[in-house]
């Protein structure tokens, strides 16, 4: 939390993307993307399949090298100082990749060591997270015995064990049952209220509509529009329409400057 307070004092934003571009074999997947995530904000990135959402998230998480552009995490240049930036980030991929032969507790031990979480704190957080995600009774089970939903919960626990200041979640609710999905949504909102920033991609528009403070709509690698739900409605001239109508209208437009 010291680093967070420090960065707030410096007025640095949790995430700033400027001119972010990723080109795969002459095909731009993300094109000149500018995006700012504010402190304590829950930001939803929406877009059709292949719009560039996951590529953007992977570049922020340090998994992909951008072709061009700048990524700043709490003022830290993530391309120049990746380790410092990663210390403040958690990345939750859409596909839960775990170590099948480890128990969920051993998995959390490993992740906590990667982010250098003090032992007592890590143990306390692991217990809280596993209890909250209803995995505590399975803490001694190997991950290979888990269902997809349980694996998703284990990966989520791993993402949160170092108490990240910026959490990147790619389709976080996939495979979760209704009660756990509700719990995860509450958890994310609590984190945002506590001043942490969360950015998530989702195909479920209802999730974005209910959870997000701001919504960004991305299509063909470009940010087509962003704002609160009301701002997006105004922009699309859609009155009191649902987010689904606004989304479909915006992604069908050729481009919005």
């Amino acid at each position, binding site marked *: 939390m010291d680093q967070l307070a420090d960065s707030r004092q410096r007025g640095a934003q949790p995430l700033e993307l400027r001119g972010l571009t990723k080109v795969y074999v002459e095909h731009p997947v993300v094109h000149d993307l500018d995006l700012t995530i504010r402190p304590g904000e829950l930001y939803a990135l929406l877009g059709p399949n292949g719009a560039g959402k996951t590529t953007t998230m992977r570049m922020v998480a340090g998994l992909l090298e951008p072709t061009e552009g700048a990524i700043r995490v709490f003022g830290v240049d993530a391309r120049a100082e990746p380790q410092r930036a990663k210390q403040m980030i*958690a990345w939750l991929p859409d596909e839960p990749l775990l170590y099948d032969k480890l128990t969920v507790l051993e998995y959390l031990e490993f992740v906590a060591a990667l*982010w250098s979480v003090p032992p007592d704190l890590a143990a306390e957080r692991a217990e809280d997270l596993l209890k909250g995600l209803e995995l505590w009774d399975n803490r001694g089970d190997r991950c290979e015995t888990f269902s997809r939903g349980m694996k998703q919960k284990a990966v989520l626990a791993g993402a949160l064990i170092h108490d990240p200041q910026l959490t990147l979640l790619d389709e976080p609710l996939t495979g979760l049952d209704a009660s756990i999905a509700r719990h995860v949504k509450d958890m994310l909102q609590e984190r945002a209220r506590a001043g942490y920033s969360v950015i998530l991609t989702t195909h479920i528009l209802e999730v974005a509509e209910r959870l997000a403070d701001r919504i960004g709509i991305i299509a063909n690698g470009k940010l087509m529009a962003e704002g609160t739900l009301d701002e997006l409605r105004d922009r699309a001239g859609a009155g009191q329409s649902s987010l689904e109508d606004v989304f479909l209208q915006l992604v069908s437009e050729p481009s919005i400057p």
Partner: protein
Amino acid sequence: MAQPGSILWFLQHEIRVTWRTWMQRRPAGKKRRRNVPAPLIAVAVILAATLFVGVPIALELRDVEIAATPVLAFLIDAGLVLIFTLMLSQTLVMAVDAFYDRGDLDLLLSSPVPPRRILTVRALAMAVNPALLFWAISAPIALPMAIVGGHPNVLAVLVVIGALALIATAVGLVIAISLFSSIGPRRTRTVAQVIAAVAGAAFVLAAQIPGLIIRDEDNPPGVGMFSWLLDRDSLPGPAMWPAEAVLGAPLPLLGVSAFAVAVFALIAAWVGRRFASDAAAASGADTARRRRGREDARFGGSIFRATLAKEMRMLFRDPGLISQVLLRVFYLVPLALIILTDTGDSADFMPALVAGAASLLAGQLAGSVAWIAISAEDAPQLLASAPVKMRAFWRAKLAASLIVPIVLVLPLMVAFAFVDVTGAAVGALAAVASAWSATMINLWLQKPSKRSDYRRSWASTLGANLLELLTSMAIAATAGMAVAGLGAAWIPAVVAVSVLVLARRSEDAILERMSAA
């Protein structure tokens, strides 16, 4: 156009999928657009072998009459047994995989198509796989022999190879089903892999037995047997048939082919009846059992310790993988036996051989564990997103790769020190050097993959594996020659160092290779 759902239709589907998979296969580590598909490379190699090896042999044998003498029949029989054991090794694993690998199996089994039909097509695909390999090996000789050598009857070898592949597939299916029934689907995969590996090496091992037990000072092993064959006009009937079939005699060829087709059809029909239920049992086998571990947390390890502990836990909790690693070493046994039997009773060479063997063993073990720890990382995204330089992970993974061979080989060297101190000391040093070099080559030339692909890792990273084997052999030769007091020991040492210098890659190059994959 085949009727949808028919065997022919399924076969077309399998061929299309397999063809596209093959055409997408590229040699590892190069940019995709520049690479030539692997099948085209294979065709080029076969054509070159035909032109430069097959044609000269065919021209040489143009006027030679090829008759099924007892010696030739014995050699052909032995060759066919070797091919069959190698084919069986392949088809057994494929037969078990047919039940486990889900792929499109769930889709197919949920369709109204009879499971027997699906199994028949899968079994045919299983047979084609090893047959293709041996067709590719024999065609460069058989085709020129038929076309320019004046021996069209030798084309029958291609038919016999097809027949052998059908029989090997049928036997593979029977063993797989027997294992399912006797030890259950959970253990079948591991046991089948062990049987397959033993079958693959069985013939070469068995061929060494006469040399090990018959000690004839005057004649090398085997000479006695050939003189016995030379004294005879013919072998007993059944022993001649396969050879006669290979040489194109119509009746034996027809007999062998009909036998193979009948065995295959009968087994496919029998296995097909229970295919759906066995495949369903296999699908739950990996997840059905709850594996409990400790429930107390031990947080607070360093990155090195945490990564090392993770690697060791994951390795030792995977008996299937351990068995495959040890079996890869097992394949060295025939080689060692050949060397031992060729050197006869000369006790002078024993310390040199032990030192060399220890080095080779350590190198092969380290290479296997390094591939598992480095190339087959299960959660590369997690490591890449952590605020840690990859170098830190690599250090722990390298340590994990060195621990296994050192723990296995060093006690042997300590025991050997009671027999020969110099041999043991050089053997231990060479083992460490060999393990280190194999591990580093894996790190430098890694190609990210999955643990489940371990069996195919030799082919997928062929270049790295060949370099790894070359270095291990060079270090083994250095150790052996040094212990034997040969002055030329520096020559293989220079080879090993040269290979390491050539294989070495910078950290940036390794990272680029990882992200490209």
